[in-house]
C-alpha cells in the first residue's frame, strides 16, 4: 500500500492560490515541500486560530490547506537563497507556483532556463487572470474572483414578484475560487505527469483562476448562447430564467432540508407514500392525481410543495430524511460542516481521520479523503509543517548542506 503519487516530488511556491493544489498532491501521497519566506507564509495569518489566538502556528486555515506537506523557509530574493532554490528546482518533479507575476522570471527562472535545469519538470503556474492580457495586473481575492467568474450572479435569494432584487448576489466564500482553480490545475498536472512518464519531457501549465471559475458555472453560458435569456438568482436552488418550485424547507428546529421533489417522475408516488405516513398527504394520494398530466399546473404545484413543506416543518434537522431516502427520494438535512463528523456513512468510509499535533499534545479530526481506494489510501499525516520544520531534512538531506552551513544561513536570514 502506497499513495497514488509516492513517486512524485512537488515544490510549492506562493500563497493561498496554490495551496489547495499542493494539498491534493500531498493527500495523494506526493512529497510536497512548501517553500515559505523566513518567518512563514502570509497564509499563516488567515484565521480562524487555535483558541482564537492569532499566531503563525495556530492558523486553522493553514493547518487544513497544508496538511501532509513538508515546510522549509527560504528567502528566494537573497543570492544564496536563489541558489538553494535552484537546487530544489533541479531535483523536483512538479512545481506549483502562485507567486506574484514575474517573480520567478525576475530571479532567472523563466521556463527556458527551468527546462535546461530540469528537462522533465512539470510546472504549474496559477495566476489570478493569466500571465498576459488587459486584466493581467488586476487585484483579486476570493470574493472578486467569484464576482468576475460568474458564480455570484447565480447565487442569492428569490427576487420580488416584479423580478427585481432587494438582496445582492452572494459569494459562497471559503476560498472556493482556489478550490476550483486547484482542482483544475491538479487535473492538468496529472495529465502532464502521465505524458512525462512516457516521454521524459515536462511541460508548463498556465492556469488562470478567472478562466477556471468562468468554466465552472453550470449552464448559464449555454443557456445564453441558445436562448439569449439571463438567469435569475433563486434561494437555495439553481439559477434559471424563470422562478421555479422551492427545494429548501424550514424544519421545526429552525434549520433546513433540501429536497429534489419532482411531481411528474416516478418519485411522486414515493413522496405521497412518505407524506401519507407522516399525515401530510392531504388529497395527494387520491385518484384525481393518478394521471401525471393532472399534476401539470401551477395550482397543483402550490398544493404539493406546501404539503412537503408542512412535513418538513414537523421534523427536526435529522428527522424524516432517512425514511425519505429509503423510499428513494433525494432528501437531506442542510448540515453545518461539523455536523458530518459523527455520520455513520463517513465513519465507515473513514472520510475523516485523526491527525496528531504532538506539540499541542492532542489530535484533531480532519476530512482526509475525497474518495476511497484500498490500493492507494489517502495520506493520514503529518499535520501541516511548523515554520522551517524541515529545513535540515531538505537543505541538509537533499541539498547536502552541513550543520555549520545551515546555522550560517539561518543567522544571515536566508532560511
Amino acid at each position: 500500500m502506497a499513495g497514488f503519487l509516492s513517486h512524485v516530488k512537488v515544490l510549492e511556491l506562493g500563497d493561498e492560490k496554490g495551496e489547495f493544489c499542493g494539498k491534493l498532491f500531498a493527500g495523494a501521497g506526493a512529497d510536497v515541500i512548501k517553500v515559505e519566506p523566513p518567518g512563514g507564509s502570509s497564509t499563516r495569518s488567515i484565521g480562524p486560530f487555535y483558541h482564537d489566538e492569532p499566531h503563525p502556528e495556530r492558523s486553522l486555515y493553514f493547518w487544513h490547506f497544508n496538511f501532509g506537506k513538508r515546510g522549509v523557509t527560504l528567502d528566494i530574493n537573497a543570492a544564496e537563497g536563489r541558489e538553494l532554490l535552484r537546487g530544489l528546482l533541479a531535483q523536483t518533479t512538479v512545481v506549483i507556483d502562485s507567486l506574484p507575476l514575474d517573480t520567478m522570471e525576475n530571479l532567472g527562472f523563466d521556463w527556458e532556463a527551468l527546462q535546461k535545469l530540469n528537462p522533465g519538470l512539470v510546472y504549474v503556474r496559477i495566476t489570478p487572470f493569466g500571465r498576459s492580457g488587459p486584466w493581467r495586473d488586476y487585484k483579486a481575492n476570493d470574493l472578486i474572483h467569484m464576482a468576475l467568474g460568474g458564480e455570484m450572479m447565480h447565487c442569492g435569494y428569490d427576487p420580488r414578484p416584479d423580478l427585481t432584487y432587494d438582496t445582492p448576489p452572494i459569494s459562497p466564500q471559503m476560498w472556493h475560487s482556489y478550490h476550483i482553480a486547484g482542482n483544475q490545475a491538479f487535473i492538468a498536472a496529472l495529465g502532464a505527469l502521465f505524458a512525462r512518464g512516457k516521454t521524459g519531457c515536462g511541460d508548463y501549465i498556465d492556469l488562470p483562476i478567472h478562466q477556471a471559475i468562468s468554466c465552472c458555472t453550470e449552464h448559464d453560458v449555454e443557456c445564453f448562447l441558445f436562448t439569449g435569456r439571463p438567469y435569475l438568482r433563486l434561494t437555495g436552488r439553481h439559477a434559471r430564467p424563470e422562478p421555479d418550485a422551492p427545494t429548501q424547507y424550514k424544519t421545526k428546529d429552525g434549520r433546513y432540508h433540501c429536497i429534489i421533489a419532482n411531481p411528474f417522475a416516478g418519485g411522486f408516488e414515493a413522496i405521497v407514500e412518505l407524506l401519507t405516513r407522516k399525515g401530510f398527504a392531504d388529497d395527494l394520494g387520491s385518484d384525481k392525481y393518478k394521471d401525471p398530466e393532472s399534476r401539470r399546473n401551477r395550482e397543483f404545484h402550490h398544493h404539493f410543495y406546501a404539503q412537503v413543506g408542512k412535513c418538513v416543518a414537523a421534523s427536526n434537522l435529522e428527522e424524516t430524511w432517512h425514511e425519505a431516502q429509503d423510499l428513494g427520494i433525494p432528501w437531506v438535512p442542510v448540515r453545518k460542516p461539523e455536523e458530518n463528523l459523527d455520520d455513520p456513512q463517513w465513519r465507515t468510509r473513514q472520510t475523516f481521520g485523526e491527525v496528531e499535533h504532538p506539540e499541542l499534545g492532542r489530535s484533531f479530526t480532519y476530512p482526509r479523503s475525497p474518495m476511497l481506494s484500498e490500493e492507494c489510501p489517502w495520506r493520514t499525516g503529518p499535520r501541516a509543517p511548523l515554520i522551517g520544520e524541515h529545513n535540515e531534512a531538505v537543505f541538509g538531506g537533499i541539498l547536502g548542506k552541513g550543520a555549520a552551513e545551515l546555522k550560517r544561513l539561518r543567522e544571515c536570514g536566508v532560511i
Partner: protein
Amino acid sequence: MRPLEGVRIADLSWLMAGAGGLKLMSALGAEVIRIEYQGRMDWLRFHAQTPIPYRQPDRAPLNPQSPNRSGYFNAINAGKYGISLNVKHPEGRKLFLRLVAISDIVVESFTAETMDKLGLGYEVLKSVKPDIIYYQQPGWGKKGPYVKYASYGPIAQGVSGLTEQSGLPEPHPPAGWGFSYMDWSGAYYCAIGMLLALNYKQATGKGQYIDGSQIEPAIYMTGTAILDYLANGRHWQRTGNRSPYRPAAPHGAYRCAGPGADRWIAIAVTNEDEWRALVREMGNPGWASEVKFATMAARIANHDELDRLMEAWTREQDGYAIQERLQKAGVPAGVCQRAQDRLELDPQLKHLNWMITLPHSEVGPWPHRDIAWHFANLQSDQGGPTRRSAPCYGEDNDYVYGELLKLTKAEQERLRQAGVI
C-alpha cells in the same frame, strides 16, 4: 502530443458529475467511448438549454424530438465518441466486456450496486482485463450504510455543509450555490481519480478499483470550519459577502447602474493602502475620515453603515467604470458578471480564448467553453480526439464495432435488429 494519447475509457457515466469528468479526460486526449442505450438515454439530451439557437436566427430550426440538440449535453460531452449498446442484454454485456478488454478504464456514475446487478462488478472486469482501472462514483459512495441513497448536486451541497456556509447571516436562509457546484466538483474528482490511478499504474503496473462519491469531495473542502468547531467549539455562522476569517472592510457586493437594476460590483479592501486608495477614488468624502472608519477593526465594527455609504457612491455609476478605476488605483474590485458579460464584455476571457467553435454533426458549428489550462507544449482542448462537439446518439458505432471490435457489417446489423446495439 495529447497527454492521454493511447488511453481508452469505456464510459457508462451520465448527467454531469460523472460525464463532466470524462469531458476533461477527452480534452486531455483520452479516447472516451460513451455508451448509451435508447431506452434510457441521458436525461440531459432532452432537457437543459435546447431551444432555438439565439445567435444564429437564420439557421434551419432544430428537430425538437432529436436527442442531439441539447446545448448543455453537447457542452459536457464534447470530444467523446458515442455508441449505442444495451449492456442489460446478454449479448450486449458480452460486447461491453470485449470493449473492456481493450480499454484502460471503466467508469460509471450509476447508483452504487447497478454494475454488480448487471454482472459487471470489479472482479468480472478484472477477469477480462487484469490491470483495468474501475472508477465508480455513486452519490454517497459504495461502501457504507447509505449505499442506496440518492444524490444530485444540490443534495451533495446540502448535506456536506457547502449550502449552509453560503448566504446572508440568520435570519436569512442559506443561499446555497445557485447551481450544481458539486456536479462540477464531482466531475473534477471523477477525472482526478482516474488520473491518479493512471499515474499509479504507469509507475507500478497495477490497476485498481476506486469507490468515489459526489459528497466526500465537498466535505474535503470544509476542513477549516470543522477545525474551528473542534479547536474552538464554534458552530458555523454565515457571513454573507463579508470576509469570514481574514479581516477586510469594506468587503461586499454593491449595487451600481446597469441592466435590469441588477448590476453589482464586488469590492474587497484588505489593508490600509487599499482603503486610502478607495477613499481617494471616491473623492475623499467627509464620512470616510470619521473615526468609526479609521481602522480595519473600526470599519468591520461599522460595516452596515459603511456598506450603505459605499452603495450611495456606487449606485449611479457604471460597474465596469468603477472596476477599471479602482483596479488602476490598486483596489480589488470586479463586476458580478453574467454569462452575457463574460461572453461579450470581458476582454480577459477573450484574450485567453476561452470559447472555441466545434462542429456538431447535427447542430453544426457551435461555440463551446474550452478547458482553462494552457500547456506550453502538450496539446489539449475541448475538441479532444474527435475534434468535434458531443456525439449524436450512436454516432461512432461504425468506428467502435467495426474498427475496434472487428464486427462485420452483417453482424452489426443482426445486433441492431436484436436490440443489442
